[in-house]
């Protein structure tokens, strides 16, 4: 992926994040327990080009939200670095760069302050960054933002509880757009919404991307949603990136056995009657991940090498990349 580095807006380089999950100090002293840490994200690298949408999928606990939070700076990475427009985000001098990114959260009920009027919520990033100082311009900008996301300027006088989930997510989007960002990190923005409303929000996000030339990192556990919005897709499993490829290619010709399993696990709405073989087993405990490839206990193609040696994310002739010994050795068919 480094060959495209010149055009990339964001690069995540070998990033990792650990969380201290030790028991309280007193318990450790009395019971003689060591500190314990959980590797939520480990050695994840990818880049996002300007104007594209990278979808990040995986089951709960795979570290996709942690990646999002590292990128926007809510967690500093424990290892590796995150480069935005050529500057390492860990450097203090890069602080102004963060103004060019914003985040949309999953739960529109928890991410809006219930005591603030919508117009104050939407105006906050503008005021905080000192983009606009006089009131009339601010009011006009808020009205413009609300119109842009399909709400009425009059809605600015209301409080969040007066809106439905989909409308609240529109408010979140208006707030995220208020500081004119180029890059939006969207963490499951439609997971809390009903399907008909989800379609509205996905369409809105696509329209805004076209109109404002936005770059998205779109995180979701729903592969069909990602297939609709993403141009490129990364698949995570237990804190690691296991496959990344162009969306069309990933869904039509998935390479990693885990990606194949995820795609196969989507309920078949077309009712073709094909029998699905649900994959046995569950995601292992991230405190004690299996040796070698993290997917090996559930993988039908695992061999000795998979159980001992961790596979690296290797580029494929088809353009994507997969972290799988079986794919690298050509043991899996197309």
């Amino acid at each position: 992926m480094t060959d495209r580095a010149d055009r990339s807006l964001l690069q995540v380089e070998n990033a990792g994040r650990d969380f201290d999950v030790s028991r309280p100090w007193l318990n450790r002293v009395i019971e003689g327990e060591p500190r314990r840490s959980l590797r939520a994200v480990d050695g994840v690298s990818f880049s996002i080009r300007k104007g594209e949408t990278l979808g990040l999928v995986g089951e709960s606990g795979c570290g996709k939200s942690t990646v999002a939070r590292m990128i926007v700076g809510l967690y500093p990475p424990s290892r590796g670095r995150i480069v935005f427009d050529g500057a390492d985000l860990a450097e203090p001098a890069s602080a102004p760069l963060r103004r060019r990114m914003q985040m949309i959260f999953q739960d529109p009920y928890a991410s809006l302050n219930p005591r603030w009027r919508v117009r104050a919520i939407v105006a906050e990033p503008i005021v905080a960054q000192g983009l606009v100082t006089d009131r009339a311009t601010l009011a006009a900008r808020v009205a413009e933002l609300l119109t842009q996301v399909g709400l009425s300027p009059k809605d600015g006088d209301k409080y969040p509880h007066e809106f439905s989930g989909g409308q609240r997510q529109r408010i979140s989007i208006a707030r995220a757009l208020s500081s004119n960002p180029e890059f939006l990190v969207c963490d499951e923005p439609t997971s809390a919404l009903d399907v008909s409303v989800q379609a509205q929000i996905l369409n809105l996000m696509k329209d805004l991307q076209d109109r404002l030339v936005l770059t998205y990192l779109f995180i979701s556990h729903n592969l069909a949603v990602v297939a609709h919005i993403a141009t490129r897709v990364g698949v995570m499993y237990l804190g690691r990136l296991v496959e990344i490829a162009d969306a069309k290619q990933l869904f039509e010709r998935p390479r990693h056995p885990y990606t194949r399993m995820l795609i196969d696990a989507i309920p078949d709405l077309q009712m073709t009657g094909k029998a699905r073989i649900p994959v046995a087993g569950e995601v292992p405990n991230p405190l004690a991940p299996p040796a070698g490839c993290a997917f090996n206990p559930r993988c039908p193609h695992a061999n000795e090498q998979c159980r001992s040696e961790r596979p690296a994310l290797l580029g494929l002739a088809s353009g994507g990349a997969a972290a799988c010994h079986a794919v690298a050795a050509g043991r899996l068919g197309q």
Partner: protein
Amino acid sequence: MGTPLLEVRNLRVEFPTRQGTLCAVDDLSFEIAPGEMLGVVGESGAGKSLTGMAIIGLLEPPGRIAAGEIRLEGERIDNLPAEAMRRIRGKRIGAIFQDPLTSLNPLFTIGAQLVETIDIHLHTGRNAARRHAIDLLAEVGIPAPELRLDQYPHQFSGGMRQRAVIALALAGRPRLIVADEPTTALDVSIQAQIITLLKRLAAEHDTAVLLITHDMGVIAETADRVAVLYAGRLAEIGPVREVIHAPRHPYTRGLMSSIPKLGEGRERLAQIDGAMPRLNAIPPGCAYNPRCPERFARCSTERPSPLPAGGNFAACWLYDRSR
């Protein structure tokens, strides 16, 4: 179809509030045949969970059944005293809820909860109940059931907990299971396992299932028939294949086309503008009329009843033959 196992007739669930009475389920009728799996879909607030709660007699006050009747094997169960209903729950109707953590008591082992349920409903004595509990855990695919029986819910993973809840629902050998979003809290790979399990067990035990979910995909995989609810009312009901491939009600059509599907690429999704009305602002006539692309004058004045439409029944004036 023979005698239905469950018969819901003109069910109406109301919530009295200071601003007036809200009607959350309105004139809802359907039947479930023995061994049949009926899916109930709808968006949040459509009244699907309340329908399930009304059937198992667990409506939270002030919610109440204001009209209609519910019959299980011909016997009315909507007006039974609490104690009689408690004996039916678990024995004749099993329940599976969305969050397996809240349906298991964290202070008792999985085994204690299973043994108690089996002993109460089947009067087997505790030793036989324990053996039966081990069999049930094995049946729902929990490895090392003898060991797992003595563990607490927190020692189980999410998928294993939902398996234990299914074992608990099956423990009294009910004829009907009400499953409210049984896979929503689970990851996709686990969801597929649980769906397959529920489908297999229902078939093996000849248990009917009322499967409540917002996920059309889950319905497509499991249900025989499906009822689509909108604003507390029945929009459409019919065989699952018909409803999915040839939906008749404009709402079902909109709903089906707004679901993102793999293999469609990055095309724009069809969307239904607006949102489901709040219960205190349901429009007169058909509840869907303000969002409906096919509405005509009658839709905003007169409320349609379910009318035959293809192989389905759709509550829509488009299908009124006398028109």
